[in-house]
């Protein structure tokens, strides 16, 4: 039963556009990196607290920005049909540059 569900999911997922798959990979990447930092915080401590916050929140911010981009470039999502994928990507680049300037500033 579970195998069927997984198979159906992977079959359906193969139909998604390439750029959405890449964005999904980035989402998982951001989550996994955040999880590693969170595990370090739990096991070792928060000592350079600003560095922990900078690293963890950069992952969270990157995740949120990528979710927004994914919503805008997904052809199945008609809500953002007025925004071209190129325009959405330009916004994404700008937002990421600003986010990471703040992150590097806070990292100290």
């Amino acid at each position: 039963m579970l195998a069927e569900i997984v198979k159906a999911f992977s079959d359906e997922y193969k139909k998604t556009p390439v750029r959405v798959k890449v964005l999904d990979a980035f989402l998982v990447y951001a989550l996994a990196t955040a999880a590693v930092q969170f595990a370090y915080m739990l096991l070792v401590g928060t000592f350079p607290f600003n560095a922990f916050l900078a690293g963890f929140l950069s992952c969270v911010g990157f995740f949120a920005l990528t979710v927004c981009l994914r919503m805008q470039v997904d052809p199945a999502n008609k809500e953002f049909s007025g925004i071209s994928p190129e325009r959405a990507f330009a916004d994404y680049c700008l937002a990421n540059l600003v986010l990471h300037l703040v992150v590097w500033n806070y990292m100290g």
Partner: protein
Amino acid sequence: MAFLRWALAALVVQAAVFSVIAQDAEQAQVVAELSISDVKVVIKGADGSAISTLTGTYPKAVLANPQVPAAGSLDVSLSVKKGGESFKPQQVMLMLKSKSLGLAAYAVGKLKSGSYSLSINAAAVEKQIGKAAGEYEATLLVGDPSTPKGISYALGTAELLFSGASNAPEPAAAVRTAKFQPANNVKPDITHIFRAPEKRPPAIVSLVFAGLALVPLAIVILYVPLATGVNFKAWSAAPLAALLFHGGLAAMLLLYLLFWLKLNLAQTLPLAGAGGLFVAGSGYMLLSALSTQRLKKD
């Protein structure tokens, strides 16, 4: 001109009338003058019994530097009259002025059955000006706004003894008047205290976690080309713009690295602005090329 002359004459007459009225008022006030009588100075011991009792006649001093015991007190009683009648002035005070410091402590008179009584002791002096053992000039002050002159009766000097316990060495703040605080009484500088560094884990632990944090990145780099079928076909749409755009993004990331390592924010922001403009321009070229290519295909 005639009008002006009349006005001037009127002013002169007015001034003359007022000056006459004012003189009358002054003459009327001279009549009521303050006077004090029955001045009695009592030095009391610790048990409240009188050690010595002196009778004073204004303006002759009565105190010849007697000692006032630590727990004892200096009591003064008097009656006040104005123009020969019993009167209640606004101020009746006994001032004790320290000869060494120049500071004064005061006791306020209390009216009781027609005569005022004032009492001051070492504890009250200490409360007002701090601990200053030694000689004090005692002065009786009587005043009221309805009379032109107050009375300042110099009673003489007395030596105040402070209790043994309070004679013990005390910090410099014994004299509680701002004027007498030392000029260099400056509070220490407040400096920011950083969080004390905690014990760091062994370097190997930090390095392992740094490696773990990089593992997802490695997986992305390996997985994305293999599993998603990502390709570089769009590169040919605008090769120069694509090169400039990605080079600009890399330069921005390099700038952030430099910002972390050596630059400060004031140096970084202009560079980031310039880099951002470059990235925006090249990105506009690249993305509009991609957009026209996509629309043509559709």
